[in-house]
């Protein structure tokens, strides 16, 4: 099948045959580039990872603890893969959020050799020197892992050397000057303008020299729709800037489609009064996931919930460049947070319903008490 040649040089939906592979991404069969979201369980739930050029929406849980964690995993994965980061938050200073990223667990060769440094021995001085060289190697070189998806240790912070090696852009509304232009974007106009400028300046949309190494931009937008952004969709049933959030998401998805970037947006869904707006927000995203954390009383009373920290509802799975994606087995998933892993597991098994399960063989095994044995193979025979 010959993929048609497009005019835009950097559309993420084109087969990138012959060009160097971008670190931290892999090609799927449908001419799409996917990258890891930082939590391998979430990658599996979304059908293999986040498609570059798509938008992932996370409906926050009540305390915004697990959604913030997923955002941190997302950004940490970007640091480890060498992508560029863009973080916008109205509540916490984005620079502080980046300092708080968890440390990745890397089991590369360098780490093991540095921990087993042999004592000084004059006879094997040459081999000693090699081991010492590995010890003196900076952490950033060890971090160049080519694996897809990593685990993070939440008790340790990421090394500052690793953070310094990564290029990042932040947007913090209290520090930005506000232009009083009234457009349909409302309070998000400055944010969209900033994102568009970064994408264009750093060449993610194909503008720029051909010799530049291609990279992916990861955008993390924290708590869009909350009152701190200047939006009143969370405390009013018929908000004044009713279409600001939806228009912004529409324009954001358009920017993502024409550039090598992927965005994770968290929205305080439990605060949005008008459920129709929430439905529109979900439909405007490519993938949508909702987190519902258990309170401690729920965990004690319900035996099914006692092992887990909350439920993960998959609202929407993207099907880009295909009629229908691989449908997940079931959509009842629960998550559990441990120090080194955010695991997502099935809550229960669905009924054993499959087109390949053969029922005719079972019927033949039984001795028929009523009439002749079934001879045909048509499904309607009894």
């Amino acid at each position, binding site marked *: *099948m010959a*993929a*048609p040649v*497009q005019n835009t040089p950097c*559309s993420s*939906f*084109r087969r990138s045959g012959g060009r160097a592979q971008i670190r931290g991404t892999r090609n799927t069969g*449908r*001419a799409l580039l996917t990258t890891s979201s930082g939590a391998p369980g979430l990658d599996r739930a979304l059908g293999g990872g986040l498609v570059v050029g798509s938008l992932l929406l996370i409906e926050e849980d009540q305390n915004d603890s697990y959604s913030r964690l997923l955002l941190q995993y997302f950004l940490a994965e970007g640091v480890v893969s060498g992508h560029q980061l863009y973080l916008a938050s109205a509540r916490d200073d984005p620079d502080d959020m980046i300092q708080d990223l968890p440390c990745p667990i890397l089991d590369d060769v360098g780490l093991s050799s540095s921990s087993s440094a042999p004592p000084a021995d004059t006879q094997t001085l040459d081999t000693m020197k090699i081991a010492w060289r590995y010890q003196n190697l900076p952490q950033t070189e060890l971090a160049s892992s080519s694996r897809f998806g990593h685990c993070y240790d939440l008790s340790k912070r990421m090394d500052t050397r690793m953070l310094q090696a990564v290029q990042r852009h932040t947007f913090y509304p209290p520090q930005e000057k506000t232009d009083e*232009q009234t*457009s*349909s*974007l409302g309070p998000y*106009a400055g944010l*969209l*303008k900033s994102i*568009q400028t970064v994408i264009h300046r750093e060449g993610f949309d194909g503008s720029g020299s051909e010799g530049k190494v291609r990279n992916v931009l990861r955008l993390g937008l924290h708590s869009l729709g909350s009152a701190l952004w200047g939006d009143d969709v969370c405390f009013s049933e018929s908000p004044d800037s*009713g*279409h600001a959030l*939806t*228009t912004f998401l*529409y*324009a954001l*998805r*358009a*920017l993502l*489609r*024409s550039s090598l970037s992927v965005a994770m947006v968290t929205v305080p869904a439990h605060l949005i009064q008008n*459920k*129709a707006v929430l*439905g*529109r927000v979900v*439909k*405007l995203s490519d993938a949508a996931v909702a987190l519902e954390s258990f309170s401690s009383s729920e965990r004690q009373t319900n035996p099914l919930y006692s092992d887990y920290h909350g439920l993960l509802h998959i609202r929407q799975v993207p*099907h*880009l*460049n*295909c*009629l*229908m994606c691989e*449908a*997940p*087995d*079931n*959509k009842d998933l629960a998550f559990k947070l441990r120090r080194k892993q955010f695991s997502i597991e099935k809550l229960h098994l*669905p009924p054993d*319903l*499959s*087109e390949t*399960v053969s*029922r005719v063989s079972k019927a033949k095994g039984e001795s028929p008490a009523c009439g002749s044995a079934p001879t045909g193979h048509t*499904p*309607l025979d009894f």
Partner: protein
Amino acid sequence: MFPELNSILSSSPENFTEGEFILLSDRQADASFLIHHYLTFYLRARCRVCFLGLVQSFSHYSVVSQRLGVNLTQAKEKGQLVFLEALKASPGVLLGDESSDKTAALDYLRSPCPELRGLYEFVWNSLSRAGGEDAAESWGPPVLIIDDLSVLLSLGVSAGAILDFTHYCQATICSQLQGSMIALVRCDDEEYDEDEESSNYLLKALSHQCSLSLRVEGLSTGYCRDIHGQVEIWWRGRGIKNQRKIFQYKVHDKGASFFAPGTSRAVL
């Protein structure tokens, strides 16, 4: 183009009714696979197609249509397909860039009171030209496909403006030019959407205008991997011609299969 759906609707690229307004809608499911069906169907039938791509980029439709056997890039070059890339052009228009598209088609993003007159003019200009100008081949009746209308509600356009637009399009394309029109509307549950600017209201009004309605819904018993939902097909005619049928469906990589409720191979 899905052969099973063609036999259900008794239409084929060689023989289909003209002057139809087909309304696709969904609730708790995704009806965009039907858009791909109609796009490839009318391109195979050698009709002139104007496609308003408001939610996805051209490459998405191109890759899917390739799998269904139709080359969209070739159709665009030959002049059979006019594709409006509204999604990709929208950030430039919203932020008021000088280098952005100046056409009036995207006026609903620009003006303080968004309306769709510019979009209608774009549709009229692309479809009203008879195929005899400098085109070597003459195409069949004009077809307008809109994917999808409910996103315009999210962008601030009022339901009344959308209904005006569809009325104008239906009057010109279906009655005057004897062509067809296909529109997709995506809705939520009834209990949430009760005001006038909701997609449910838009759906009710459009169902009254249309001649054929395909309503896609998820199963009432919940999510199932082997049966993706059910389609209710409603032929809105007078007297005997007014009938409804319900089918369950499953979408594969290269098409969709439709079967009577309860007869899925997974269940039997």
